């Protein structure tokens, strides 16, 4: 008979992945906090506040990258508007953080500073309940889910695909950015939300709060990864990749691609929303530039650099690109975008399977077996990846 779902989800991971996850969680939940709190700043092993904030931020990006890989790598749907869902989650949680400032703002008012500045006398209706942590947590999930569901329903029902879909998602996030830039929208306009003081009553800049947020982000990243592994190893995942490769065949054997795409699309948006909500208290600001088109394109670059359709690749990609970014933007700020463009071109031309693909190729070169022959790579950047599902990922047997 079938075992409980939790065991089945765990069995979607092979031994090596489980070990890697354990090490990851041990480092983020134990080693880093201990090193940060117990060692003096002069010590070589001290983990600085800067490092914790940076790594926490990148882990949020890594969650987004996994979410992106689910729809792009496995579903073949390239979204260039995923920054929108990230920002929506961020704004939703930002509302709560703004309310937590209380009367400690510049104007000592119950209203957030920007509303006082606009001479508003009361909170707009959609801020109702924004002082409740539970309600806002629900919004973090529900708002991106609703936007994604409605948009996705009409887009997928109209069978909009490929480049057309990508362009529409860009337009969507751009339109949202313009909307959020307006002061009248009620989300702080240009400046967005910042100057946060507390979260759940705890000082937001205290080392303990930072470490809790950092650990929580690590936990969510690990859970996202496990969930995604389980999804792609399920029959659902096989139908999804089948839709990516031959959608008409899928329809003629009796699956309706609409609901398959809509589910993964909405789930992906929700994961981005959660990542955004974790990002804002750590970084301390959210503004409409998070919805800029360039930000969303960068998400696709992390995934492409790491390797589409591998789940681990996008995490690697998010870390590599963002660590490079934080070094570049300090050392050579004006060259960062050139470097990013160059990186994307190099990866597209030379590494169709990304860094993870490169590593696999190198390993295979050592121990070549004809059975492991990979299918030839596809030409287009928009085309889905061709990494065959490794046998360990298949959940044919229970």
């Amino acid at each position, binding site marked *: 008979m079938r075992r409980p779902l939790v065991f089945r989800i765990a069995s979607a991971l092979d031994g090596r992945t489980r070990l890697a996850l354990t090490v990851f969680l041990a480092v983020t939940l134990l080693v880093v906090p201990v090193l940060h709190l117990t060692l003096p700043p002069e010590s070589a092993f001290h983990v600085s506040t800067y490092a914790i904030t940076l790594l926490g931020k990148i882990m949020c990006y890594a969650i987004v990258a996994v979410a992106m890989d689910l729809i792009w790598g496995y579903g073949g749907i390239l979204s260039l508007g995923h920054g929108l869902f990230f920002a929506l989650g961020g704004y939703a949680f930002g509302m709560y953080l703004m309310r937590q400032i209380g009367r400690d703002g510049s104007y000592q008012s119950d209203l957030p500073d920007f509303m006082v500045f606009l001479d508003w006398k009361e909170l707009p209706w959609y801020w109702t309940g924004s002082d409740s942590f539970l309600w806002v947590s629900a919004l973090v999930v529900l708002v991106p889910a609703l936007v994604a569901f409605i948009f996705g329903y009409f887009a997928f029902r109209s069978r909009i695909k490929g480049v057309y879909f990508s362009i529409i998602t860009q337009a969507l996030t751009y339109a949202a950015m313009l909307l959020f830039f307006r002061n009248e929208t009620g989300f702080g306009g240009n400046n967005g939300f910042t100057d946060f003081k507390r979260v759940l009553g705890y000082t937001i800049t205290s080392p303990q709060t930072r470490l809790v947020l950092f650990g929580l982000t690590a936990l969510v990243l690990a859970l996202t990864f496990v969930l995604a592994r389980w999804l792609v190893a399920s029959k659902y995942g096989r139908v999804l990749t089948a839709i990516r490769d031959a959608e008409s065949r899928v329809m003629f054997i009796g699956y309706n691609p609409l609901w*398959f795409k809509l589910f993964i699309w909405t789930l992906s948006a929700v994961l981005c929303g959660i990542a955004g909500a974790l990002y804002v208290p750590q970084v301390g600001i959210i503004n409409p530039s998070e919805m800029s088109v360039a930000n969303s394109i960068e998400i696709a670059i992390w995934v492409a650099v790491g390797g589409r359709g591998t789940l681990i690749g996008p995490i690697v990609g998010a870390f590599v690109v963002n660590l490079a970014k934080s070094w570049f933007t300090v050392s050579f700020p004006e060259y960062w975008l050139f470097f990013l463009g160059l990186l994307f071109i190099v990866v597209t031309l030379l590494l169709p399977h990304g860094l993870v693909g490169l590593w696999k190729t190198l390993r295979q070169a050592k121990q070549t077996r004809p059975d492991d022959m990979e*299918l030839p790579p596809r030409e287009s950047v928009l085309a889905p990846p061709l990494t065959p599902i490794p046998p360990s990922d298949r959940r044919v047997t229970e």
Partner: protein
Amino acid sequence: MSARDVFRKIIGIELDESNAYTGKRRTLDISHNVILYLEDITVSFDGFKALNKLNLAIDAGELRCIIGPNGAGKTTMMDVITGKARPDSGSAFFGQTIDLTRLSEPEIAHAGIGRKFQKPTIFEQHSVFENLELAMTTDKRALTTLTAWLRDDDRDRIADTLRLIRLDTEADRPAGLLSHGQKQWLEIGMLLMQEPRLLLLDEPVAGMTDDETMRTAELFVSLAGKHSLVVVEHDMAFVKALGGKVTVLHEGSVLAEGDLDAVQNDQRVIEVYLGR
């Protein structure tokens, strides 16, 4: 029109959709011994009539061959039957009651019509086994596939089909690595996993060796009776081996119908094929 219908029209949701993909068959009424009726079907693309008042009736259990020169409308006819193209006029019925012009592609698949494409269309990244697994008749709604699993009799069915299409030794290979003929067989196997009542086969032996072609003919003949088959083919030796009734399409309508010899000796057919 009820409020429900209005709602349905506005947002275009099929409200009974939740029941359409569960693998439960619609009842098929073949009381007149006819499984497929096409009546006065016209389909035009920018003024060009791909099908022009096409009439066709397929009996239950029949093996029918459709031949005709390029552009005669053979593929468009299959598109109409499977819901990919909507006719401008005319009616298409599966049995006495199922109106094909009102159903979507997946709904038609669940009603029991399987289609093989001209170019073998299989899931190249998936293993041969997985290709058959995905095609198998079962509850095909998105959320149920999340926790779907294979029972022993499902495995047996897949194993039987693998033997039938002679791919049992290739079960774990990626389907993209099969030969062209093997891919054709795999697609036929996928159709059989759907347990269709009617199979539409568009040039199923293209790219097969003579030996494979004859084995395919044997397979199709053995399937007739239990299933109804409509085969579009150019290979006359194959059509002859199938031995069923032959329909000749020309410029979107039926030119001639009968057994192969009669059709081949029909003066109009000769003109169409050889030119005047």
